[in-house]
């Protein structure tokens, strides 16, 4: 036979290269910049796309095979969970508040990431990152869907889940993660990769998925553990993509270093603020806790982050500007945020509560330098008001930070008794911020951040016009069912009644 048959067995790397890298070609009928129009405007210089190293070399056949295995496991577990009324095995239905926040605030972010990675998967003029981004795009829609599917059963028995799609676009606290993902998607492809691929996936998602999911297991929620860990197995691929992407940019041209550093500074802080929600989920909303937010931060933030930034130092990268302030804020943020949620719980589609004595003892043990000094007295005061029949409610509106969109409830670095508040003026308008870092981010790109949709002012505009009842209807929040204190809620009474039925004759 004339055809020369090469019988040499290709290595994994060579084979992968033929099955991906080699598929593309240099276009000659169209100009490359017309096919990839967004590849250069951010100023990132790439000289040689072939220098991209693929960390996980998955071809589609292997992808389908392994992902199908994960899917079979996942749906078997959530089906069994639903059939067996697994929700009655939870330590306590209070725990569900964490899941409600997850569904309203985080799952939509998974979808946004799906869409964003589909865009970068098309816009990078290099096959290596394109294929990796495309796989991440399809993984991210998986995460959105598995989360909705896992929580669908809870929605049938408990309040607060039913309006998540409306709340994603309208309720005040979801605009924190929404603005984060919108910000990333409004950025160019390279910045998107730093925002989601690097900052969110590599530096921060461990904090969300690993200790929190371990906590879900601890609280009897096998359905959430399963989606969490199953998603996180994809995240391992995503994290390596994020890390590779940052190395690639830094190695391609020294001019990229300051741009990348600016994005690291920005996106670390943006991500850290979003995680404010997670800190309260971990410290306050898990009836049985595996570790505190502070302990999780020490392992997955501090230790892991330092390892990473030590490693990147050889390129001239330093830890993010907000790194030190973040480390200090970790001892305060969950308490400050839970206090805020509690006083505004008329406007949340989940319950909050005054921590029990037992909870408070745990918190003082975990936060020896801050809890008893600053936060226990506030909770004790709120408890007293509650006992006197005058529960503490704040119907006033907080100022939202123009950048991160959280209410400005955080304190000054170095002074936990003074609220931190920053302002700036741009084209004759005043803008408010929760911190120096959020103000700095605004000042880098004011034209972007003046566009932010702020949920609080919306209350006074059409169609709400300051009417609280109309607002609740508009955000699909059922007053007296979805919101308020957990004590005395439908969720509490249903759960206790059903548990009673399950444990007695």
């Amino acid at each position, binding site marked *: 036979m004339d055809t020369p048959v090469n019988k040499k067995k290709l290595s994994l790397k060579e084979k992968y290269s033929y099955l991906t890298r080699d598929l593309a070609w240099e276009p000659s009928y169209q100009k490359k910049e017309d096919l990839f129009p967004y590849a250069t405007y951010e100023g990132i210089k790439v000289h040689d796309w072939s220098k991209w190293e693929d960390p996980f070399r998955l071809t589609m056949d292997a992808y389908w095979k392994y992902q*199908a295995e994960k899917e079979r496991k996942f749906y078997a577990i959530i089906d069994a969970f639903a059939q067996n009324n697994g929700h009655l095995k939870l330590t306590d239905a209070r725990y569900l508040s964490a899941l409600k926040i997850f569904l309203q605030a985080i799952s939509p972010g998974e979808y946004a990431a799906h869409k964003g990675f589909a865009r970068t998967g098309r816009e990078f003029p290099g096959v290596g990152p394109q294929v990796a981004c495309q796989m991440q795009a399809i993984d991210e829609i998986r995460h959105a869907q598995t989360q909705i599917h896992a929580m669908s059963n809870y929605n049938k028995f408990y309040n607060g889940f039913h309006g998540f799609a*409306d709340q994603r676009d309208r309720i005040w606290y979801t605009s924190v993660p929404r603005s984060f993902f919108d910000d990333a998607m409004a950025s160019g492809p390279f910045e998107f990769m730093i925002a989601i691929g690097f900052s969110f996936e590599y530096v921060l998602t461990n904090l969300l998925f690993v200790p929190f999911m371990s906590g879900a297991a601890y609280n009897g929620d096998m359905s959430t553990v399963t989606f969490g860990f199953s998603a996180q197995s994809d995240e391992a691929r995503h994290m390596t993509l994020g890390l590779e992407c940052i190395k690639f940019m830094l190695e391609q041209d020294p001019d990229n270093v300051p741009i990348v550093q600016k994005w690291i500074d920005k996106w670390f802080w943006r991500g850290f603020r979003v995680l404010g929600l997670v800190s309260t989920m971990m410290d306050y909303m898990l009836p049985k806790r595996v570790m505190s937010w502070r302990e999780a931060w020490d392992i997955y933030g501090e230790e892991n982050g330092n390892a990473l930034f030590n490693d990147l130092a050889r390129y001239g990268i330093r830890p993010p500007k907000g790194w030190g302030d973040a480390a200090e804020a970790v001892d305060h943020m969950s308490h400050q945020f839970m206090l805020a949620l509690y006083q505004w719980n008329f406007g949340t589609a989940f319950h909050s509560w005054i921590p029990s004595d037992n909870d408070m003892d745990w918190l003082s043990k975990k936060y020896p330098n801050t809890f008893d000094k600053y936060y226990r007295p506030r909770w004790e005061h709120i408890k007293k008001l509650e006992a006197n029949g005058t529960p503490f409610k704040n119907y006033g509106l907080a100022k939202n930070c123009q950048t991160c969109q959280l209410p400005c409830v955080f304190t000054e670095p170095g002074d936990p008794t003074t609220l931190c508040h920053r302002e700036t003026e741009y084209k004759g308008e005043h803008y408010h911020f929760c911190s120096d870092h959020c103000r700095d981010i605004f000042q880098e790109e004011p034209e972007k951040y003046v566009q932010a949709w702020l949920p609080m002012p919306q209350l006074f505009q059409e169609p709400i016009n300051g009417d609280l009842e109309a607002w609740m209807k508009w955000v699909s929040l059922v007053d007296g069912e979805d919101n308020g204190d957990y004590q005395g809620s439908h969720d509490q009474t249903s759960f206790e009644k059903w548990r009673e039925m399950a444990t007695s004759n």
Partner: protein
Amino acid sequence: MQIDVRTVSIEPVRKTFDHLARRFGNKPASRYQEGSYDIQAAENLHYRPTWDPDQELYDPNLSRIRMKDWYDLKDPRQFYYSTYTLARARQQENVEANFAFVEARGLQDMLPEDIVEKSLKLLVPLRHAAWGANQNNTLACGYGYGVVFTQPCMYHAMDNLGISQYLSRIGLLLGGVEALEQAKDAWLNDSAWQALRRLVEDTMAIRDPFEVFVAQNVVLDGLLYPVVYERLVDTYLASQGGQAVAMLTQFMTNWFTESKKWTNGVLKVTAAESDENAKVLAEWINHWSDRAVSAILPIVNSVLDERVDEMVSEELEAFRARIAKTGIQL
């Protein structure tokens, strides 16, 4: 504490999520519905894209197609990630079994020489065309509007990548690394492939996500797959002793049959929405099918000596009949 919860019968307090109850009534929703409808942000978008400030982050006006509700474009296969992935995992097991069958018996070495040559010449350069399809579907997903329309585009993009990898493996099996190199050279330089490459590059320059969908999935694949896989591989090559090659392209044949259900469904609903839509669709289909036919002809000519024009025009007729059934007048 051990609770035997199976014995408890408790009444659910609601049947489904609010947005699904509004669309489908107050009844339990399917997993396809839960995972697809309204899961994309719809209002109060925060910022305009820095890459094109004229666009919204999710923008239905990037296309000339107009829909009152983009969620009308349901995927008849009802693919969400899980059903999609499980379907492909089963198919890839078959492909693996077919490759293993061929390799274990050395069938690739028993193929007549000219069949090997023709298979390499015809199939391996197509891996680049499949990569172009991947780019186009990724774009349609990234910039299209409404999850029920865009999520199958992402699945399709991954299928296109899978197909380009299967085609590459056929090349490696029948001709080693050299076969891939020769095919790439043909794709870049051989005159028989230039009309197709130009067409693929031109489709990659389209930024209207729906036009990309039409040019790629409806028109180009709609003509290329029946010609290449049904006519040339399954019929012509198989009749000349190339059955083993047909085993290796079974995925593509089945995939095309399946994906027609989706593309037909999308066309039908879009055309029925308004006369304007139907006109735009007809314009696109006419334009791109003229280009596709002239791109496919020289490829067929390079492996087949006779009845080439006849065969391609029969397939074009079949294609036009298929489009007519979706309510579009060409």
